[in-house]
């Protein structure tokens, strides 16, 4: 029962990351993924594993919001220069596109999770949540309209990998997993407020 609930929380965190738009959406995504997947990895790693993923997610959320209050820093403009927007007509809005791809990803994660053995965890649910987080990363990269989307995609990929690794064997892996997700959060914080390259519906 607990396993199912925690896996569902991981799925919800990834779903937030799938559909979020804008800097505040990115901040909410980082927090939701950190808490959701942190709950999943706590099944095998306990509080330390939860603290790592939840802490990184929460810290990324806070930093994105804080940098928004300090426009003088403007890390994205400092890194990338001015980025005027290009208009492009699309059949689907970006959220609809992500939703459609997400449904496909959901089915793929459901099928694949039965073929992955995550250490001692025998249930499909937790592995499904990790796989779905990874697929959300792929979808964000594939449908990305700008640097912030790509950074969010990389963050999702790192969180999915980290949660799968922690789920498999939490002992001894915590230091390098922490380093991995923290490094993935850096570009997300730096590029969260960058302008998209293209707009359009």
């Amino acid at each position, binding site marked *: 029962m607990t396993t199912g609930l925690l896996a569902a929380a991981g799925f919800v965190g990834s779903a937030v990351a799938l559909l979020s738009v804008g800097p505040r959406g990115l901040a909410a995504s980082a927090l939701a993924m950190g808490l959701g997947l942190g709950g999943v990895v706590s099944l095998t790693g306990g509080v330390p594993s939860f603290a790592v993923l939840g802490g990184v997610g929460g810290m990324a959320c806070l930093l994105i919001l804080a940098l928004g209050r300090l426009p003088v820093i403007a890390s994205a403009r400092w890194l990338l220069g001015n*980025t005027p927007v290009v208009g492009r007509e699309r059949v689907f809005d970006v959220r609809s596109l992500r939703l459609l791809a997400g449904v496909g990803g959901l089915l793929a994660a459901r099928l694949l999770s039965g073929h992955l053995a995550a250490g001692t965890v025998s249930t499909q649910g937790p592995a499904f949540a990790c796989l779905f987080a*990874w697929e959300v990363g792929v979808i964000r*990269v594939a449908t990305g309209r700008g640097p912030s989307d790509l950074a969010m995609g990389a963050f999702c990929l790192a969180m999915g990998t980290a949660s*799968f690794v922690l789920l498999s064997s939490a002992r001894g892996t915590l230091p390098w997993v922490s380093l991995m997700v923290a*490094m993935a959060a850096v570009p997300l914080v730096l590029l969260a407020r960058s302008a998209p390259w293209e707009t359009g519906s």
Partner: protein
Amino acid sequence: MIWALGAAGLALAALAVLLLGGRSRLVQIAGALVFVALGGALASHLLLLEHPAPARLAEGLGALSPTRIMAGIMLGAVAMLALEISSAGEGGPSAAAEALFLILSVAAASALCTNSLVVAAGLVGLLMGAVWVRWQRVAGPQLSVRSVARQAVVATGCLLGAAAVVPSVRVGGAPPLLEAILLTGAVTAVLGVFPFSGWPGVIGRLGHSELAFWRLLLLPTGALLEARLVAMTTSAVASPMRELLIGLGLATALFWGMRALLGPDQGRYPRTLACDGGLICAGIGFGTLEGLSAAMVLLVCHWLGGAVLGPDETSRPRLVGWIGMSGVPPFGGFTGRLLVVLAATAFSPVVSGILLLASGLQLGASAAAMRSSLSPRTAGALRWSQVVAVALAAGTLVLGVVPVTAVHLLMGFRP
């Protein structure tokens, strides 16, 4: 160790000279030559020691184990950059580009030393991300630049994903095909082959000197990463991975060979380079000595001749470069492509035929480029600084008759 620390310290000093010296030609040349000398000292330290390549991927942060071939290739890349700086005119690499290149060459070398997929993912992400940021700043908000950013994220993500499921790392099992797909995705993203071959479209908006990042740094890094990953995974993973790499390499070679032949003269060289990237990918994928040798010869060929093949170059250096690159015997391009075909003969006659077709397309593209090089529009007096570039381009002519063992020695490879 003392050699290595001293070389690293002095290299940083040389880097500072480059950064502070701006575009002063004398300072740039001096700084670059000092850096090469120090790199030589460091490389000799590495080359003299026996560092066996790690047999398998390691969990976590793994360990750094420098290999001679890595030292040889990275030293060659930095040396070529130094020569390119000394030969380039006003359109040559800027001081900022040189500094970034030197920093990134350290990241690339580290990525090729590690046996940890997580560390490799971070370093490859840094390497490609930095190149993207640089190109974004140079070219402005071009949609085509986005493909490079995507490649960076995909390479990093695939390596991270593979770190979670490779059987030698994790207890439990993922289908070997899934692991092979993830590792292949990472290699193709770094090498810039299908389905991640959007980068040649960016070069036209950046200027020819920016191509040095791809030609001298990312392409060799991708090739070596491919060779290392194939060697370090289990045969159950390596086998489908090699087949995928061969298939994608062939598709890239055919597509970009066709585009190089039919496209305008302006972007012909980046397309030819992309085509050869496919041949390098397939060559290493064959897993034979001929395939690896072919990759090395093609890399050296582009190192030597690529600098003079920009659209703004005058006719004589371009002509020499294109002749060397063309695939006409006995020049360098011919030897590289012949070795790929030889490697493919043991694999499949159909694959050999496709490789011959791709080589033919490149020959046609080179012929078209040679014809345009002879037009009066591009004729101009040879500047003294171009003598080095012409000498380098002439190296592609000689490369074809140099024994392959000499190329092995140059790259630090001892079969």
